[in-house]
């Protein structure tokens, strides 16, 4: 099945959690904020959130800015 | 919101000591600033600033030129009624004075309006005594239906009203409110206003603010300098100006500087405002508030009015009669039939005033505003 991660289609296995996806991409869950289908998820929900087909994910973090 | 707590706070302060303790360097500092605060105003009104009046005049003159150009707006008062229920001990119209009382009928209002309009004046100030029974809000409303045909700008100087009453007059074409506190010294005020609605210090004090809220474009305040300690009253007037300007930036706040002159009646001023003091007050106002409208009435002499032209004045009355019906009735005020509220000193006609202003390089302005409403 496929989810959209930061605008790109990504194939993932059934039953994958959000935390699992982040770890598989080498993203530290403590430095990001995630929008799942335009809803902001709290960090402690990452582990219990099972992804579904077509989910829209936005993963953001702080970068340099003025 | 109300200016009352601020006024009370300052009344409790030893203001005289503070005026006395101002130093030369305080004055110099205030003179060097572009934005002045309440302390600077106090400095400029203090005795320590008296030797600096020429420097203040130079700066005030330049600021006035910068913001207003070489123009003087002309207006004239129209007394509609002199019935009065107040006993203000200093006033010629007070209820205890046995003078002929009258109130213009609408036809007479029209006569007066025609006579004034014929002089070219477009800005009018209508006045009444304090009598809701005679010069009622309804009466004023009807007068406005006549007056707005002749004058694009009409201000009122009448008894204090509630906000919705002011709003109603705004709807009928009034765009300016003049209300003088007379004195900001609450204790003294009580001794000068013995009876009548005007006795209510706070209701009077909040009237300009109610006018601002009601949609008046110009709100003109002032103290009758000399009633009390003129220095304190002028200073509190300045604080009142700043208070209103801060809260109602959409309203033009203006001041008048009427001063009491020694006169024949029983009541004499508490303090005498000499020419030099008067000039210092006016200059302090100009430096404190560069955009402030400053009105000088015909209580002042022709010579003095001409001398202070470059110092900060923006508005002057002309062709004045302070008597009811004084503009259209062939009446020599000497014969006692018609009694004015106060004696005027500058008796020049509008034409003479204009001629004199032009001679000094000033443009007399008859009209700088057209009140556009949905009036039918």
């Amino acid at each position, binding site marked *: 099945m496929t989810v959209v991660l930061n605008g790109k289609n990504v194939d993932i296995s059934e039953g994958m959690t959000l935390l699992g996806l982040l770890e598989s991409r080498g993203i530290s869950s403590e*430095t990001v904020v995630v929008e799942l289908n335009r809803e902001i998820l709290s*960090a402690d929900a990452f582990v219990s959130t099972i992804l579904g087909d077509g989910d829209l994910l936005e993963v953001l973090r702080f970068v*340099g800015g003025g | 919101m109300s200016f009352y707590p601020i006024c009370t706070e300052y009344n409790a302060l030893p203001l005289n000591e503070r005026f006395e303790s101002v130093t030369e360097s305080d004055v110099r500092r205030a003179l060097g600033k572009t934005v002045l605060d309440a302390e600077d105003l106090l400095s400029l009104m203090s005795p320590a600033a008296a030797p600096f009046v020429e420097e203040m005049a130079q700066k005030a003159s330049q600021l006035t030129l910068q913001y207003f150009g070489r123009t003087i707006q002309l207006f004239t008062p129209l007394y509609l009624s002199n019935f009065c229920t107040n006993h203000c001990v200093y006033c010629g119209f007070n209820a205890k004075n046995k003078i002929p009382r009258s109130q213009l009928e609408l036809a007479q209002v029209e006569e007066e309006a025609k006579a004034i309009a014929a002089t070219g004046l477009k800005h009018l100030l209508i006045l009444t005594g304090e009598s809701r029974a005679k010069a009622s809000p309804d009466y004023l409303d009807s007068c406005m239906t006549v007056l707005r045909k002749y004058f694009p700008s009409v201000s009122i100087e009448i008894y204090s009203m509630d906000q919705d009453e002011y709003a109603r007059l705004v709807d009928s074409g009034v765009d300016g409110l003049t209300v003088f506190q007379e004195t900001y010294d609450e204790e003294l005020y009580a001794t000068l206003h013995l009876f009548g609605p005007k006795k209510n210090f706070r209701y009077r004090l909040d009237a300009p603010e109610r006018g601002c809220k009601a949609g008046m474009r110009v709100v003109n305040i002032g103290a009758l300098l000399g009633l009390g300690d003129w220095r304190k009253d002028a200073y509190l007037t300045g604080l009142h100006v700043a208070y209103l300007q801060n809260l109602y930036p959409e309203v033009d706040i203006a001041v008048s500087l009427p001063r009491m002159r020694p006169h024949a009646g029983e009541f004499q001023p508490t303090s005498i405002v000499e020419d030099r003091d008067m000039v210092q007050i006016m200059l302090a106002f100009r430096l404190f508030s560069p955009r402030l409208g400053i009105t000088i009435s015909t209580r002042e002499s022709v010579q003095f009015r001409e001398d202070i032209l470059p110092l900060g004045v923006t508005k002057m009355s002309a062709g004045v009669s302070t008597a009811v019906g004084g503009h259209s009735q062939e009446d020599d005020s000497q014969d006692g039939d018609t009694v004015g509220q106060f004696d005027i000193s500058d008796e020049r006609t509008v034409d003479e005033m204009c001629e004199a202003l032009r001679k000094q390089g000033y443009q007399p302005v008859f009209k700088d505003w057209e009140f556009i409403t949905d009036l039918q």
Partner: protein
Amino acid sequence: MSEDIFEIGGFKLESRLFTGTGKYADDSIISDVCEASASQVITVALRRVDLESGTGNVMDYIPKYMKLLPNTSGARSADEAIRIARLARAMGCGDWIKIEVISDNKYLLPDGYETAKATEILANEGFVVLPYINADLYVARSLVDAGAAAVMPLGAPIGTNRGLKTREMVRILIEEIDLPIIVDAGIGNPSEACEAMEMGADACLVNTAIATAGNPVLMARAFGRAVRAGREAYLAGAGAMCRHAKASSPLTGFLSED
């Protein structure tokens, strides 16, 4: 001077210089910049994680004592700014937000109308809102009504380092607005930050001028000192100064005639 505390959003700050994290050639210098400037508030932006190149994390270089001020850069409307603000708060670094709404990419000037809309909504949600605006009195007043914690007028268009071009307008905001005025954007030199502080600004936000200096750490220290000098000058009160020429003809001669 230790008693001159700048209170904003429930924080008590000793430094009145806000810094930023944008445009550094190497982010690792940021911690030294923070220390040299003595600043206690620093801005960050929020962006999508780049999945391809694993770049360093700017957060690793921001000292822990710094108060984070996330901005909504990239937002072109109030709605986008609100979305970014909520995401930023979800990062768990507090509820301060610098609202920045720009839809003109030629001049990068902020949209005051959208900014005021976003400010009102976010202030109601409990954010400490610091909106970045053109130095405009009416917009500033609408921000006061909207519940902003400060007003941040620009000194010059963002990133231009052109100095305090809006001097007279900023002066009006300082006089008229009862919220802290923080001059943001455009300040190129410490002398300009100093001037803003002398005028009575409550703080300055400086990013580009430090980040793009030949020696950012040295420049950060210079800005820290300039802001402090300007503040002290403001507190000291300017001395008497004669702005007008001496009279050629007296205006009050008539007073001495009697």
